[in-house]
């Protein structure tokens, strides 16, 4: 069980509504996200991480630009991604963007790289979905080399080779913590271990406990690869308000709207209120009062031996004001309470010998 914990916020910069229920503009969403991150630092949250999508409802297509703006307004909070769709990025460009972000933020850049659950970026950037696996493997290899030791001599299938190449700005090895985001593919878990990178589990439905076998697989794979023990993180969804009732009342209509869209697109039956409550009670929606949410997070941290928990806050078009309120409660009340609960359970373990 880890003893050091990091608690972050994740956002995809969703188009939100104003107080009269009308969608606000994308540029306003981006400026609001900067304000949300500034508040996150003020209330003591460890990191602020931005996704990568190419859809009309999300404004997170260029996270490093938004993160750089946040860097200039903050001093301590770590600035990262959730997740960077590495399969369709050029690792050299990704390196330059985040090494530069690391410089302007004075060492606060971090990354979660994954394959992404959506595939919009493949046709957009001219990649073939059939190369999904190979693309990720090759690009992760090059990115890790650039981050670990330069100059790099490298050749692959999907981009021109590099020979004794230095890429600026230089950064020391390990400067940008780089996690591998995994949505449930065992091969991705094993790959993270093979590259010696920490594991970020994205769990957006169902009980977190059912990912315990993946944690076991990761640990066994690290051993097999001769790698040291590495941290494990969890990304899940949530919303905090003063009371459980208020949190449910605000989140439910937006949850419903979000999943009704997904249901139409994917042919699912839209979720019922009972299913939503089940997700809140024991699944992957961390919704409620600070005490409720803290207890659920502490439970997940214990069940999966986590070192890091990132909350994708305020799912759907929840207005900026309520997003700010949830950040405030998460930072000021939830995180300190989770730390308290985890310290208590560590004491019990120690006392129990």
């Amino acid at each position, binding site marked *: 069980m880890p003893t050091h914990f990091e608690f972050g916020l994740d956002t995809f910069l969703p188009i939100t509504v104003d107080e009269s229920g009308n969608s606000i503009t994308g540029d306003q969403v981006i400026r609001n996200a900067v304000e949300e991150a500034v508040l996150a630092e003020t209330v003591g949250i460890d990191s602020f991480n931005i996704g990568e999508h190419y859809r009309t409802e999300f404004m997170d297509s260029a996270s490093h630009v938004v993160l750089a703006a946040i860097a200039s307004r903050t001093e301590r909070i770590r600035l990262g991604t959730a997740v960077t769709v590495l399969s369709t990025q050029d690792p050299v460009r990704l390196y330059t963007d985040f090494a530069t972000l690391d410089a302007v933020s004075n060492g606060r850049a971090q990354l979660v790289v994954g394959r992404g*659950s*959506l*595939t*919009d970026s*493949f*046709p957009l950037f001219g990649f073939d*979905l*059939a190369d*999904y*696996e190979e693309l990720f493997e090759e690009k992760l290899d090059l990115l890790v080399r650039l981050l670990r030791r330069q100059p790099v001599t490298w050749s692959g299938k999907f981009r021109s080779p590099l020979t004794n190449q230095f890429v600026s700005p230089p950064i020391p090895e390990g400067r940008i913590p780089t996690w591998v985001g995994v949505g*449930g*593919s*065992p*091969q991705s*878990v*094993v790959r993270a271990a093979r590259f010696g990178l920490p594991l970020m589990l994205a769990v957006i*439905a*169902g009980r977190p406990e*059912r990912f315990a*076998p*993946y944690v*076991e*697989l990761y640990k*066994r*794979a690290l051993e*097999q690869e001769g790698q040291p023990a590495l941290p494990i993180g969890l990304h899940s969804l949530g919303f905090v308000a003063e009371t459980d009732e208020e949190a449910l009342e605000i989140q439910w209509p937006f949850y419903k709207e979000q999943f009704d869209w997904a249901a139409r*697109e*994917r*042919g*699912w*039956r839209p979720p019922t209120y009972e299913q939503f409550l089940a997700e809140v009670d024991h699944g992957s929606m961390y919704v409620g009062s600070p005490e409720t949410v803290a207890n659920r997070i502490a439970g997940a941290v214990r069940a999966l031996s986590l070192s890091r928990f990132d909350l994708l806050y305020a799912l759907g078009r929840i207005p900026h004001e309520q997003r700010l309120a949830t950040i405030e409660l998460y930072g000021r009340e939830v995180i300190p309470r989770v730390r308290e609960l985890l310290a208590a359970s560590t004491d019990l373990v120690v006392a129990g010998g």
Partner: protein
Amino acid sequence: MAVEAIQPDVRSVPEVDDRSLGIVGAGKFGTTLARAAIAAGYDVAISGSGAADDIALTVDVLAPGARAATTEEVVRDSEVIVLAVPTHRFRELPRDLFAGKILVDAMNYWEPVDGDDPELEGAAEGTSTVVQARFPSARVVKSLNQLGYHQLEEHRRPDGASDRIAVGAAGDDRRAVDAVMRLVDRLGFDPVDAGTLENGRVLEPDGSPVAVTYSADELAKLVSP
């Protein structure tokens, strides 16, 4: 004609029922299914896209008791094989790989995840007919596609349990459908005959049963042509 008269009536030969199951695809669905099948008393062989060694640790941790193998070995050793590869990759498998075998098509086509696939998108008679056309010598049955992998894990119940949910099976080879229904039952679900392979389109993501839990009666009503 006399020559035909001495041919055995294949329909009267009972389907081999040796409790062996092959799974092609060692992703989250394939490994979850392997675990369920082991619990149901099956001898399970499972393959990924490469060597058996590549998935040995994964199988050992996620589906202890199952045997990591190559796809060729899985096909050789099993009469019933579940196809659980990413939908955009099934065409990478050889056309005659599954000759004579019962092939359970557990795949779903979702454009946002699988990318644009005009052939599957335009498959008026269901995506499993495309799979059958790709593997003409296989006995394709559409089944096990309705459940997400965590539902497959969490909803298995013994026969007769009041909250047991239903899983449909659709195919043109009726003995193959029977065999798959026996598998579904042993895995812990009420099997429902969903008719022909073409009728199997009612089990697809744009039909209503996907990712929803139904009783056998409810599902039988939904799949009736």
